[in-house]
Structure formats: structure tokens, C-alpha cells
């Protein structure tokens, strides 16, 4: 899923300081699971902002709403009748949701309330780690199911580099060396002999390098 982190409240206050009618808009998908932008976080942020403006003696209306998703027309449409009631919307969805809302409601500033960080998993409550960079051509079949693109600090496809030390990456002792994990996994799968197969030059055109990506499925288009 998409992992996001809460923005510092000072940054949010700075972005909304000129508005007096504000909607805090949560999303019930990924950001709810990673506890950055769901209904609970909408409530907490809204309360904190109300308190802040009250202390400042400024009258600001802060409303709350959480949509099933912000990356789908169907759910964003629910705001059609309310959007004119606000000077700005703080979206706690990922960057996709913020942009999709902005595309739909063109005359209303849609401000991000979270930082969208990576595609990852919940290791345990309060700990999320990256697993995928959506490079568009999955190589996990040849790397023991561990992704060097997202998990090696140098994206090395023929690793490890010389900085692997006691299973950890040279840039951070708390970070596993992806290639140590790959080698351990290949060993567990009894496939360590495949380690010596050279990984060819990667086609990065399906990654960020190729520009904004799109998938069009003729069989599904209406």
C-alpha cells in the first residue's frame, strides 16, 4: 500500500492561514491503515487546528469528512454540493488523492496534509517499510523475492556493493543490506547458483524515467 506520514502541523497552519472555512478531508484506504490520514487523524488534526485558531482569536470554521477513496471519481463526487462552502480543503490522502481532488474541484485550493512516502508494508503497528518503487518491470522472480530497486540504497542489480557489513547497509546500521537478504533467500531456496547470472541493463523507461505512466486496458474501457 501507499505509506504516508503526517505533515508537521506548523506547515499545515502556514498553508491555510489566509482561509477561514476549511474542510479536513480524510481517505479510508492506505492512509487509514498507516494511521496518517484516516477518520481518526482527520479528527485529531481538526481539533488541533480549532484549538490553534481559538487561541489566536481568529474565527475559522474547520469541518471534517472522510471519503472511502480520493482516487476515484465516484467517491470524490460526494463533495459536489459542499465544496463551495469552503475556502480550502486539506486532503489527508496520498499525493494521488490530493491531485485527483484538485482536478475535480478546480476553483478550490486542495492542500496536502500528509507527505506521501513510499509503497510499503506494515511490519508492526507504528513501523512501515518500503518494498516497491513501481519500476514497471518486476524482477522479483530472479532476486529471491527481494527487490534491490527499492531496498538497495544504490538500486544495484548485481550486488552487494562493498558497503555491505554484517548484513547491514553502509549508509545506516539499522537498514538491512538488500543483497544480503537476497543471498540468504536464494540459499534458502537452494538457488544460490543463480547468483552468478548477470542481471542485464535495466529498461528504466517503465520507471519514472519514461515520464508519467499510464495503463490502458482495452478490455475494460467502456
Amino acid at each position, binding site marked *: 500500500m501507499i505509506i504516508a506520514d503526517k505533515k508537521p502541523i506548523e506547515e499545515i497552519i502556514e498553508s491555510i492561514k489566509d482561509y477561514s472555512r476549511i474542510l479536513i478531508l480524510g481517505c479510508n484506504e492506505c492512509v487509514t491503515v498507516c494511521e496518517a490520514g484516516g477518520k481518526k487523524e482527520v479528527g485529531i488534526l481538526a481539533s488541533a487546528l480549532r484549538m490553534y485558531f481559538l487561541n489566536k482569536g481568529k474565527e475559522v470554521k474547520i469541518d471534517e469528512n472522510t471519503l472511502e477513496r480520493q482516487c476515484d471519481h465516484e467517491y470524490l463526487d460526494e463533495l459536489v454540493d459542499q465544496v463551495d462552502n469552503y475556502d480550502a480543503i486539506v486532503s489527508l490522502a496520498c499525493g494521488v488523492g490530493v491531485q485527483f481532488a484538485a482536478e475535480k474541484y478546480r476553483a478550490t485550493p486542495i492542500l496536502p496534509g500528509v507527505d506521501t512516502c513510499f509503497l510499503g508494508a506494515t511490519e508492526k503497528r507504528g513501523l512501515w517499510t518500503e518494498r516497491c518503487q513501481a519500476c514497471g518491470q518486476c524482477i522479483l522472480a530472479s532476486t529471491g523475492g527481494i527487490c534491490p530497486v527499492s531496498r538497495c540504497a544504490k538500486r544495484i542489480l548485481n550486488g552487494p556493493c562493498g558497503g555491505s557489513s554484517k548484513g547491514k547497509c553502509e549508509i545506516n546500521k539499522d537498514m538491512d543490506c538488500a543483497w544480503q537478504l537476497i543471498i540468504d533467500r536464494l540459499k534458502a531456496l537452494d538457488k544460490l547458483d543463480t547468483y*552468478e547470472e548477470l542481471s542485464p541493463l535495466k529498461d528504466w523507461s517503465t520507471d519514472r524515467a519514461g515520464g508519467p505512466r499510464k495503463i490502458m486496458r482495452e478490455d475494460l474501457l467502456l
Partner: protein
Amino acid sequence: MKTKTPSKLEKILAAGHLAVTSECGPPRGSDPEVIIKKAGLIRDHVDAVNITDNQTSMTRMCSLAACIRLKLLGLEPILQMVTRDRNRIALQSDILGAASFDINNILCLSGDHQSFGDCPLGQNVHDLDSMQLLQTVHHMRDKGKFLGGDDIARPPRMFAGAAANPFADPFEIRVARLAKKIAAGAEFIQTQCIYNLDKFEKWMGQVRDRGLHEKVSILAGITPMKSVGMARYMKKRVPGMDVPDEVVKRLADTPKEKQAAEGINICVEAILRLKEVKGVKGFHVMAIEWEEKVPEIVERSGLYPRPVVD
């Protein structure tokens, strides 16, 4: 033995001599005299000189420009090139630029992570990795083609090398990794600094067991320690460095004013011992900001005068 490139380093190795290389770090500025002076200190005692490429990710004068300086002075440069800062267009382009000055050696590296340097907020590139850069050099040299498939007018003729760290983890794939670099096109290897001679010899034994010493010229990496402080720093702080306790102790037991000389002694003893290891084809003497000591190390190790090849 037939050589594939005009590289002096390749010729010396092909003639069966123990090769000696060294390295110079370019300055953090644009004064060419820095590199010229460093090169002057070592030029008669080494066969070729590596020019580092923004090592430890500290921004410096570019390796290519410094290599050109050396070439114009009649030295044999080894262009170090990291994949951290350039995509495949820039890598190929710089290879051609180097080739236009007949720089005939390249060392293909991934490069230290940028978080160690002066631009930790910057992007890294890693379009290719070091093995894929080796493949690229061969593609350009042997097929005379760009990666995109077009012919190269006057292809580069570079002797291609790579680094190997016999001490890095996981140890079990260190030899497999060397085999992989050879398969990618490594013709010479410069190793990480060797202080743990026993472990290095064990690695060389495994290298010989697979016959890899016949397929690649391994130059053993040697770096003199200036002080016990440096030894402790390398032991504790430098990733992938194996400094045994007895080396630290030997320097610690030496009076401070004599530690530098003892560091040179350790280094010379290492070379004398490793000269006898089958498969070691030479030495890469990295005297970091201490280039003036290279002649003494080379002479005392019985590696002087350097051979003359056509």
C-alpha cells in the same frame, strides 16, 4: 601474451611483470598543479595511476580532466568511473571523451553513497551498476557500438578493471562475485586495502580453486597507515575494512613519532609476503594524501625499477 588494448598496464601484466599502480585524488578546486605535483612524486615508481571519481561523494575536480592532465604529462592514467552520478548517456560520452585522449584504462565502480559526502540531499543515478558499466565498456570496445546499437567511429580501446573487496560481507559470495565481475568483463582487479593477510590468502586460495586467477589480473590493494589513530578509524568506521587487532596493537605499541615509519614497515612486509601468493599479479598502492611515500614503499618492496614495455 597478446594484448587487446594499447594500455601500458595491460602490456606489463601480459609480459608477466608484477604491476604497480597507485592513485591520486583530484583537488577540491580547480588548481591543476595539485594533481601535477602528486603525479610527479610517483611517476617513476608506478606503471599507472588511478584518478578517483569524487571519492566518498565529496565533490572534487572531475576524474576525466585530471586523467587528461596526467596523460599530457606522459603518465598512464586509470580513469575511475562511478555509476552514482551519471546515466548511460553520460557514461558512454565520458568514455569517448577519455578515449579521445587515448586514456586506455578504466576502473568501473558503483561509488560511495552520496550520504557520505558534501551533497547528501542530492539524487543518485545508478542507471547502471558497476558490472553493467564493465559490460558497456566491452560493448563499446569489442563490438564498436553504442548501447543504442549505432556504430562508434573510432571505438574506445580501454583495459577494463573493477574493484573487489575480499573482506566484505557476505564472505561466502566474495569469490562468486569476482567470477561475476570477470564474466561482465573485468580484466584487472584492484582489491580493497589488505591488512588481514590470512583472510586475503584464504580468498586467493578460493580464487585459484576456481581458476579465476588465470582469467583476471589481481592487484593487491595496499594502504600505509600513518598512525594508530588512522588504524582505529579504518577498523571501526570504514565499511568493508578488515584491520586485525594485532595491526592496531603494533602501531599502538610504537612511539607516536615513529608510527608513520612503522606503518610503512607493515605495508612493505605485506607486499613482500603477498608477492609470493600465486595469482597476485601486482600491487595497488593507495597512499592517501601521502603520495610522497610511494617511492619508498615500491623500492623497499623490490618492485623498482619499473619495467619498460613498448
